[in-house]
């Protein structure tokens, strides 16, 4: 019998060309001609991220639809050995990452990848990310038809355009071959579900889904589109996103916030309008070929048992009788370069030479004939490729705080601890359960669609930070019926493995977890709980500069602000001065502490907290000078002067309010968007005109800026939006050179706002 063979993504010519220029930008950065900020803006859309330890970079390679050839795997292995740490990592979005690459080596990596037909373009940043598909598309017995040709053609189409790399935020597109949604299309920015109508292939389309903070399930925007319309629909959603996405706040930029802001009706109405416009305008052609898929009938006998959950079995029958998919369950998505070379060889020898990456961070060797199964099994055993135990739960973890700059908790260490703990009791009922561990609310481990989801979180106990995890259950994806996991409680990180072991030992299933979580929530906290899994220092956020604060840090700030607000409420209820003062003191302390982490400070004592607040927030004018008096009174009260603090309830409330406003005004770079209290006249004046020059290259942006300045009256203020890098530097300097008064250069989410007063 002939096995079914798919093609891999072909890197478009425009991306090939741009890859040739990557080297020059790296060289400019190394020579100091490019600032780290400008370089970051350039490299991140190339999938090149700095790891937690400075100077080490990760390269995220897109694997279109998760289909990768054995020769491409050998290239990845070679690059990891030559330039990285010799370990490859499979991501939940079917990418493959090379870690620990020196910046000077990144051009080699990108160029060599290209030779193997691979690219990291769009591997990060506000771009069209890897377009993924069900991991077993084309070979799954339950699918309606093979969706990999669609995922690949759409990627080849979108990757050509510059507009795909300058979106308000990332744009994730997923194809699922049936309603079971193994591809997770129901929680994607744009999700396609395979359907037939009148014998023609096509898709139901959902948009506005996404995981991360405030996760959402997409809404249906099309009942059915023909397969050839995927380009038009993807372009429509891209434009909808581009127009309505909030570029001023990275944390509120994803398409799901547009959906939330507009509501489903308005969202769908705008989508329809946009699609009409796109259709009238016509797409920029030519459109890539969607390979005709082989619509062969399922001939294997096991159709009815195959659904999404079967993907966790190590061996699964395929659509074609006699062929099987072999799963390599990688521990946390990692395998060594040497192992990867062996996987490539096995795929050549036993399968079709293709390997699939999965959303569970595993690899699949598809289309192994039944009669060769034992040989393959024996080889894997002999080679010692580490795979996870079939009876253990599927534990998926994000990179976590060990290497991720955004991470809060050490999610990988917890995942390892869970696996180890559950292995102690082999009688447990965990088989088939998916546990997903995200180190922070960014949800990189997709914990909202897990049987058991864990999300890193910090609580403050006795003034100290305690690493915890929110526990969520009940997540599932399915066309039209997707459900996000809901939080049932929060337990200390160190207690999580015991919690899960207890659940499974009792023969219970995840939906029965809630009472147990509450039990664990009320347990006493031993000292070692202040150490995260795998950490030898107490849990702390100190030393994380603004560039490194992610959602986890925001979470901690929220904890402090909530505490301060609660204390103000308590103070209002107290009648005795001493009790009132105690509450006010707590309110002042919590609000003073809340924002300090943004300055990389984590003072231990109350006195140090107050001092740091004066330095970082009062002196620069973020908080009214009147707060200083309040702080002084609080210190006095602590020192035994019982006099005045109780009278300052209003002032304390105002402080809490101001701190919260500042927090809510944080932009993506963790700068306050609120004006300082002591504003200059110029900075508070409204502009006479604003002009958006993003996407306009030097020097034309200056030309246009100058023309715009000439249009306002002398003495008037104009605001100009400019891209990061050369644009903001050059335009601002040139306007100043020509005698205009540059009032302010404000960093917004991914660009700048230049305020200029026309003086001549």
């Amino acid at each position, binding site marked *: 019998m002939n096995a079914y063979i798919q093609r891999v993504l072909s890197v478009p010519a425009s991306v090939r060309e741009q890859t040739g220029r990557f080297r020059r930008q790296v060289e400019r950065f190394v020579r100091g001609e490019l600032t780290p900020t400008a370089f970051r803006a350039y490299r991140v859309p190339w999938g090149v991220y700095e790891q937690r330890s400075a100077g080490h970079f990760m390269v995220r390679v897109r694997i279109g639809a998760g289909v990768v050839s054995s020769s491409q795997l050998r290239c990845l292995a070679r690059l990891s050995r030559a330039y990285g740490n010799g370990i490859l990592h499979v991501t939940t979005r079917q990418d493959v990452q090379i870690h620990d690459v020196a910046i000077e080596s990144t051009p080699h990596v990108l160029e060599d990848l290209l030779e193997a037909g691979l690219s990291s373009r769009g591997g990060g940043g506000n771009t069209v990310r890897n377009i993924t598909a069900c991991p077993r598309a084309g070979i799954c017995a339950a699918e309606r038809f093979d969706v990999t040709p669609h995922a690949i053609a759409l990627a080849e189409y979108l990757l050509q355009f510059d507009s795909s790399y300058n979106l308000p935020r990332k744009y994730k597109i997923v194809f699922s071959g049936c309603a079971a949604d193994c591809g997770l299309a129901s929680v994607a920015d744009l999700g396609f579900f395979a359907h037939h109508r009148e014998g023609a292939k096509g898709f139901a389309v959902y948009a506005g889904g996404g995981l991360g903070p405030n996760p959402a399930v997409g809404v249906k925007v099309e009942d059915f589109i023909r397969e050839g319309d995927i380009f038009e629909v993807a372009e429509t959603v891209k434009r909808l996103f581009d127009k309505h996405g909030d570029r001023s706040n990275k944390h509120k930029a994803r398409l799901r916030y547009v959906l939330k802001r507009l509501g489903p009706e308005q969202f769908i109405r705008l989508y329809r309008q946009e699609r009409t416009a796109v259709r009238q305008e016509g797409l920029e052609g030519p459109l890539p070929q969607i390979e005709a898929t082989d619509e062969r009938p399922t001939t294997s006998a096991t159709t009815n048992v195959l659904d999404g959950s079967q993907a966790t079995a190590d061996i699964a029958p395929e659509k074609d009788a006699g062929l099987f998919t072999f799963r390599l369950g990688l521990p946390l998505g990692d395998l060594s370069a040497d192992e990867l070379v062996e996987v490539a060889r096995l795929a050549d020898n036993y399968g079709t030479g293709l390997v699939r990456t999965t959303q569970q961070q595993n690899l699949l060797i598809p289309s192994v004939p039944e009669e060769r199964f034992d040989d393959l099994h024996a080889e894997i055993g002999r080679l010692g490729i580490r795979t996870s135990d079939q009876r253990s739960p599927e534990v998926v973890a994000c990179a976590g705080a060990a290497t991720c700059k955004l991470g809060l908790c050490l999610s990988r260490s917890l995942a390892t601890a869970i696996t180890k703990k559950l292995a102690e009791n082999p009688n447990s009922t965990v088989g088939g359960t998916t546990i997903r561990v995200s180190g922070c609310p960014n949800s990189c481990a997709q914990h909202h669609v897990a049987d058991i989801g864990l999300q890193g979180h910090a609580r403050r106990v006795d003034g100290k930070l305690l690493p915890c995890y929110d526990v969520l259950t009940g997540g599932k994806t399915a066309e039209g019926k997707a459900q996000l996991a809901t939080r049932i409680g929060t337990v200390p990180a160190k207690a999580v493995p015991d919690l899960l072991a207890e659940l499974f030992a009792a023969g219970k299933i995840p939906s029965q977890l809630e009472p147990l979580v509450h039990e664990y929530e009320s347990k006493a906290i031993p000292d070692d709980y202040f150490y995260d899994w795998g950490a030898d220092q107490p849990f702390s956020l100190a030393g994380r500069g603004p560039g490194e604060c992610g959602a986890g840090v925001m979470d901690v700030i929220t904890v402090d602000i909530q505490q301060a607000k609660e204390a103000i409420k308590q103070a209002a209820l107290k009648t005795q001065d001493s009790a009132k003062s105690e509450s006010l003191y707590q309110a002042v302390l919590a609000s003073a502490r809340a924002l300090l982490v943004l300055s990389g400070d984590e003072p231990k004592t109350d006195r140090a907290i107050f001092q740091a607040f004066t330095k970082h927030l009062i002196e620069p004018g973020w908080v009214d000078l009147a707060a200083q008096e309040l702080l002084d009174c609080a210190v006095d009260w602590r020192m035994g002067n019982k006099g005045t603090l109780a009278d300052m309830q209003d002032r304390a409330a105002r402080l809490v309010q101001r701190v919260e406003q500042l927090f809510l005004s944080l932009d993506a770079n963790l700068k306050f968007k609120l004006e300082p209290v002591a504003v200059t006249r110029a900075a508070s004046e409204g502009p006479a005109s604003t002009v958006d020059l993003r996407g306009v290259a030097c020097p034309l942006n*200056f030309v*246009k800026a*100058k*023309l715009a300045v*000439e249009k306002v009256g002398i003495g008037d203020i104009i605001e100009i939006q400019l891209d990061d890098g050369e644009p903001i530097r050059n335009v601002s300097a040139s306007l100043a050179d*020509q005698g205009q008064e540059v009032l302010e250069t404000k960093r917004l989410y991914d660009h700048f706002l230049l305020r200029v007063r026309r003086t001549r």
Partner: protein
Amino acid sequence: MPLTEAQIERYSRHIILDKVGGVGQEKLLSAKVLIVGTGGLGAPAALYLAAAGVGTIGLLDGDAVDLTNLQRQIIHHTEDVGVRKVDSALAKMHAINPNVTIRTYDVWARADNLAQIVREYDFVIDGVDNFAAKFLINDVCYFEQIPFSHAGILQFEGQLMTVLPNATACYRCVFPAPPPAGSVPSCGQAGVLGVLPGVVGSLQATEAIKHLLGIGELLTDTLLTYNALTMTFRKIPVGRNPECPLCGRNPEITEVRDEKQVVCEQRGCVC
């Protein structure tokens, strides 16, 4: 009218200039310059002014392109030999910048036709090859109060002066009358370095643009001489001459008249 996207791009290097900007470029776009003579001097001036976006450019020349012109009159190409000069020049200017309006006058400059043409323009470039026409331009511009740039070239030397009539020295303040016929050889007789009018004509275009924008210092009350062999530029101060027969205290010339020699007698000597 606001600049179009294409205009913004086309003129971006002007707009960037502190002293030009969008305002300056709009001035140029609404300005009108007459170039008298589309020969060696007129050629670079016409090309640069068209490129710069001077909105309306007049070309006045009654001649046709001759093979001997091509050594220096770079607006005309080999295939243009025999074509009317104004038509040949128009084609090249439109090729550079289709957005400028070009008016052509396929006539020789004469006392009875020049004034009505000149008064339509903001600035005049004297690119003629003979003294009679140079004096005619000077006189007409004086009576019509139109600023102009005078220039002359011969062999390896050129000269240049900008005249703001009734305000700065005019051509006759420096040279009251044409020299006797035959006392100064023409280009056809003495020869001229081909690149020389390229330099001087470009300087004339520079003066025109500066005047239209109102920037810099014009070459008024000053005669600039250029020696290509020694690479010397000299600025010779000249003042208004009280005895000037045109703009002096007791002018003899009270109306435009043709000097004796209207055009170079020798065919093909248009400089």
